[in-house]
């Protein structure tokens, strides 16, 4: 039984101009101790998907589909059915599913000490006892590598460096030992050396707590390092999902191939130009039928790709892809 099983998740926003559908039918599942990478360009719906799991999207967003979450009491809850302001979902947030945000510098309120903000979690979910709550907080702060935790506990966010704040943010996410950790581009705001440290830290803690991690990023290098499985998103849909090594060895979807091609590899000649995917992600407003990647695809099939939505199909060994071209080639091979 996976910890989280998302089935056909859609996020809609009703605008004056029409219906905006930034997430359209995303499905995936993650098991305990596993890391799922969610990859894609900016604006493809990664963050909305992750926030949908916690039901913390803007009030304007409507969520449909199912988000089945197995709680620590082994009950299965559909998060989409819970009141997003209700007590039930608040008990899950922070306690069972927690989230690390992209920019640690703005994720803390400047008005309260780091200690106060971390131990708010324990006071909400674990213990009302102030002393015990502080002990738990200090313990987790030490665990994420914040030196001199007793002193740091009483400091304010503006007295922390970016890397330290990210550690504090991780401490805040982990203090209640959640079953699922959502990391929304946790290292993009940090410099490279700190990035590596933070990623290693996350892996260590994952082993220790046997957490499932949903790792959201556009950095393919981090995915290779961190993830067991990868789902590639484009225009609100999963276009390819497979084990991480398979995606790297044999990307099937033209979009994934484009992404791989646009990463600089060490050892290539300096003069060699990086591959770039033409155009930008279109706005998910009043979408036409057919493949969302059609306009930018270099392998498109006229009369098929712009007419029929490609379904996500298993190409064998759990390697799924949503592409007419791939499907055709597979049938030819058979």
């Amino acid at each position, binding site marked *: 039984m996976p910890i989280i099983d998302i089935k056909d998740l859609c996020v809609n926003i009703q605008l004056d101009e029409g219906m905006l559908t930034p997430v359209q039918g995303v499905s995936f599942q993650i098991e305990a101790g596993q890391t799922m990478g969610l990859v894609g360009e900016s604006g493809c719906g990664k963050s909305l998907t992750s*926030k949908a799991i*916690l039901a*913390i999207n803007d009030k304007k967003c409507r969520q449909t589909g199912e988000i089945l979450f197995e709680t620590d009491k082994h009950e299965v809850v559909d998060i989409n059915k819970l009141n997003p*302001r209700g007590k039930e979902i*608040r*008990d*899950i*947030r*922070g*306690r069972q599913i*927690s*989230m690390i*945000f992209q*920019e640690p510098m*703005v*994720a*803390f*309120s*400047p*008005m*309260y*000490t780091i200690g106060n903000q971390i131990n*708010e*979690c324990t006071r*909400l*979910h674990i213990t009302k006892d102030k002393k015990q709550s502080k002990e738990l907080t200090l313990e987790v702060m030490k665990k994420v590598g914040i030196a001199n935790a*007793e*002193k740091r506990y*009483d400091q*304010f966010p*503006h*007295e922390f460096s970016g890397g330290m704040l990210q550690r504090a*943010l991780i401490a*805040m996410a982990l203090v209640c030992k959640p079953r699922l950790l959502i990391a929304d581009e946790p290292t993009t705001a940090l410099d490279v050396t700190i990035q590596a440290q933070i990623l290693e830290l996350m892996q260590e803690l994952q082993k220790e707590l046997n957490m499932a991690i949903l790792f959201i990023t556009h950095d393919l290098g981090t995915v290779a390092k961190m993830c067991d499985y990868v789902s590639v998103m484009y225009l609100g849909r999963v276009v390819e999902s497979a084990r991480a090594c398979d995606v790297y060895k044999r990307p099937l979807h033209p979009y994934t191939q484009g992404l791989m091609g646009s990463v600089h590899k060490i050892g290539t000649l300096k003069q060699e130009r990086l591959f770039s995917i033409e155009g930008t992600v279109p706005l998910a407003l009043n979408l036409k039928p057919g493949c969302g990647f059609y306009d930018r695809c270099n392998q498109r099939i006229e009369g098929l790709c712009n007419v029929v939505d490609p379904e996500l199909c298993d190409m064998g060994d759990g390697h799924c892809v949503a592409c007419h071209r791939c499907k055709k080639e597979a049938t030819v091979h058979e």
Partner: protein
Amino acid sequence: MAQSMATTANSPVGKPVRKSHPMLLFVLKRLVMLIPTVLIMSLLIFFIIQLPPGDYLTSYVAGLKSEGVVVDASVLANLEEQFGLDQPWYIQYFKWIVNILTKFDFGYSFDLGKRVWPIIADLLPMTLLVSLVTMLFQYLVSIPLGIYSAVKQYSVGDYVLTTIGFLGMAIPNFLFAILLMYFSFVWTGSAMIGLFSKEMLQNGVHWYNLGEFLTRLLIPVIVIGTSGMCGTLRAMRAQMLDELGRQYVLCARAKGVSERTIIYKYCLRAAINPTVSGLSGSLASIFSGSTISAIVMNLEIIGPTLYNALLAQDMYLAGTILLVMGVLIVVGTLLSDIALAWLDPRIRFSGRSE
């Protein structure tokens, strides 16, 4: 840095000693800075007051002349010398300030023929009462409504409050006063002019007529306070919306913090910042904004007296009133700064070297 190391070494927990210092230092510093501020302010006030050509005597004599009375030049010179009006302004200022500091004597009101201080001491309590109640009204009404307006953005209630807010900011005080007086006359048969009824003037304010006094206070408070209230409401709404859209709100929500805690613990504390720092400014605008309303409503407060003193070039009276208001505003600023430092740790620590 060395200092912070030393303090942490003294206290094993590293908490109590380090925390009390910046705040205390901050308050002390601001208190010391108060003295030069007030002195410079008094100099400026005096300088500006004596800027218009002539003085009380010349306008007085001009008034007599227009009525056909001829004043002897020697009498005039005599009076000038008696009041020190023949000396340059900085000597006059110096004498004035020395008298204030040594004898608490603020000079003489030519127009009213009395010492300045008793006049002010008469008016000050009522002025302070009206101003403080107005401020209380302003903030107690505008802050909750501003929060409501922001949290329920684009709801019917928000639209209603927005309409009221803009109307309140746009309607001039005196017009509002006339309107309210008209309606209170139509509805209750009394125009509610002045703070005291005839009966109160004879017997004073006691428990039994306190209710009536408070209702009489209500109209001036609403009249003077509405524009400020509406301004604060709008500012509070904008600030709250700003804070509610920040990432830390999302982060707190992801922790499982309730909406109520998010609003009151996190957003309000940050959003109230400009309102608190505008506290002394609103005190100033209450002082100056109340003048015309006070004339229209016949209120026994300091505004109309200042207005007459300025018209009559009654320099010591006008100067003293301005100085007293100035001191009140400076003290208000100090209080709001202390409140700000308490609210926002970034301000509290800004003076400390890292």
